[in-house]
């Protein structure tokens, strides 16, 4: 008996084709996602796909931190041609990394508060301390950060505070605290900006009410969000970058910003002043880390050691107006820079600043919700 088989030569009808492709799709979804174990979104593994030449290296960093001069000097001493790519927020950097982009980079410059997350997701390598030179030159308090005790994962490159820049001509009575923004809100209407960053802005509101920058009590975080909503009609914007040109030009009178951004602006426009609010603020550190997928680990260690050399660190700090954490480099800087209260704040100012702490996911969710309310309404 010959079994009656359907005639294979007939083309599929549209409906059959549709049904088969639907089956194929659902099969894909099943094997991919609906099974009990599921797949992992943005699972970064070292598959060894990217093999860079030993004399080449990619660096993922903030705009201000690396310039051509530094890259050239590094190439002369090490023979490695380094190329930079820029990010403008830690979150965007993390997302790019997890989307697989990290595989090209051998050095990344994240902020300290995001180190625990990168560590827990195994995105960065623990550093071999024996291959690093000059660690003892680092500021002692930066060696003992709760986010990365003993610099196991990252080596500090720059640090600073978060505060307020204001135009002393438009505002002769000094701005001294966060609450001044609320006090003078009518006069400052649409002439002030806050950072576009949930932790910094909610933290500032929390500080103004006498709580911690890293408050974990959901009710207090919500209260901070409500306090910010009362200021919102008077704000020109939430922005991390755009305020800089506008405050120099005189379009803005007060802006929340980082000390590293404020320093150069104060030189451009002497009427501008930078203060760390009385009730306290945050201090931040940006570090150099080596991603798990780094194609050129050897070059990465060479880079860190090169950047940490006191003369290189001092020259970089002067040229790029960043605050170096390298004590030996600070000693090489001109006296007026060493005593610049914006770049190198005295201990009494630093003491009222908190380092941003890593938040567990449910607390982070509370901050996200409060921020959504502030920015979306």
């Amino acid at each position, binding site marked *: 008996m010959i079994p009656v088989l359907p005639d294979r030569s007939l083309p599929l009808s549209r409906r059959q084709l549709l049904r088969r492709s639907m089956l194929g*799709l659902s099969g894909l979804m099943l094997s991919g*996602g609906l099974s009990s174990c599921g797949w992992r979104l*943005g699972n970064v593994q070292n598959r060894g796909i990217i093999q860079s030449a030993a004399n080449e290296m990619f660096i993922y960093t903030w705009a201000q931190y690396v310039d051509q001069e530094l890259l050239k000097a590094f190439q002369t001493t090490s023979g490695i041609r380094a190329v930079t790519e820029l990010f403008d927020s830690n979150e965007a950097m993390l997302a790019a990394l997890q989307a697989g982009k990290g595989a090209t980079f051998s050095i990344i410059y994240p902020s300290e508060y995001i180190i625990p997350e990168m560590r827990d997701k195994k995105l960065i390598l623990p550093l071999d301390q024996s291959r690093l030179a000059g660690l003892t030159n680092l500021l002692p308090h930066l060696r003992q950060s709760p986010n990365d005790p003993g610099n196991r994962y990252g080596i500090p490159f720059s640090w600073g505070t978060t505060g307020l820049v204001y135009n002393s001509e438009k505002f002769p009575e000094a701005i001294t605290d966060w609450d001044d923004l609320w006090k003078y809100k009518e006069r400052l209407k649409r002439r002030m900006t806050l950072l576009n960053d949930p932790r910094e802005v909610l933290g500032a509101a929390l500080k103004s009410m006498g709580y911690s920058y890293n408050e974990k009590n959901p009710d207090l975080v919500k209260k901070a969000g409500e306090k910010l909503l009362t200021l919102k009609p008077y704000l020109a*914007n939430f922005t991390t970058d*755009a305020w800089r040109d506008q405050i120099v030009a005189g379009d803005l009178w007060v802006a929340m910003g980082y000390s590293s951004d404020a320093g150069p602006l104060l030189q451009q426009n002497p009427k501008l002043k930078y203060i760390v609010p009385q009730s306290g603020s945050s201090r931040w550190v940006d570090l150099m880390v080596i991603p798990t997928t780094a194609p050129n680990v050897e070059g990465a260690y060479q880079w860190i050691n090169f950047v940490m050399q006191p003369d290189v660190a001092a020259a970089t700090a002067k040229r790029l107006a960043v605050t170096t954490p390298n004590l030996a480099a600070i000693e090489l800087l001109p006296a007026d820079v060493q005593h610049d209260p914006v770049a190198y704040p005295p201990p009494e100012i630093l003491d009222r600043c908190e380092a941003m702490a890593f938040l567990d996911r449910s607390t982070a969710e509370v901050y996200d919700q409060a921020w959504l*309310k502030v*920015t*979306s*309404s």
Partner: protein
Amino acid sequence: MPSAKSKDKDRTPAWLVRWLEPLVLLFPAGVWLVLLLVLPTLIIFELSFVPGIRPGDLVIPSGLGNYLRIFEPLTLLVIGRSLLFAIGTTVFCLLLGFPVAYWLGVIAPKRWQNLLLLAFVLPLWTSSLLRSYAWISILRPTGVLNSLLASVGLPSLDLLNQMPAVLIGMTYSLLPYMVLILYASLEKLDRRLLEAAADLGATPAQTFWWVTVPQVLPGLAASSLLVFINALGDFVNPELLGGPSSMTAARLIYNKFLGATPDWGMGSAMSTMLIVMVTLSIALLIKYGDRRATDL
């Protein structure tokens, strides 16, 4: 058996040709579309069923939570604002673009048409980001506009970081699309009908409303929809020009994926919703546009 074999041999080429032809022609673009459009869209669709997912988490679809969150008042407000911006931009583009397209397509001398059209499309050759930054320097309190106003003794305008700035930026970005499509539609206008209308005693206004507009209605619908869809997805202009109260659906989606408050599940649900809304309006256009075209 031998006969069956030879039969197979005879039939294979025809079978192959029937399959090979579309396969060869469609394969390159098909692979492109499947890998870079269909698959990512399916992944977004799957992620929309995972509450609060971030990179590094397991993807375990578990319900409609993300979609329910779209109906929270705050999210609805954001979506409403997006629609308002998009509708506003469409209306302004239509008001500004129709006279231009009419002049270009109907009145302007033929030999100038291409050059004028080119001049109108020229801004599209620069980056949209750059054009938004240009608007910042024009609209800011001490910017170009206010310097001009001050020099002729007029009071200054405070437009930047507010809704008017967003509408100005988006209208400026999308106006060329409106003009191009309307021009294509107006150029084909049957002028004999206009003459006939005039002959039969219609006023110019009546002619315009009852003769010109119905002829270009499919073009009007297509250009308005294109502008509307692009305005709905624009996040550059609201982000740069809109100030503190300019959160739109597109910006929120961006924030959910790459911003400081990552939640790829919610972002995917909102993306899916936008895709559905846009698909529906295109489907409506195809249906509506076709019927109009056959009516004429």
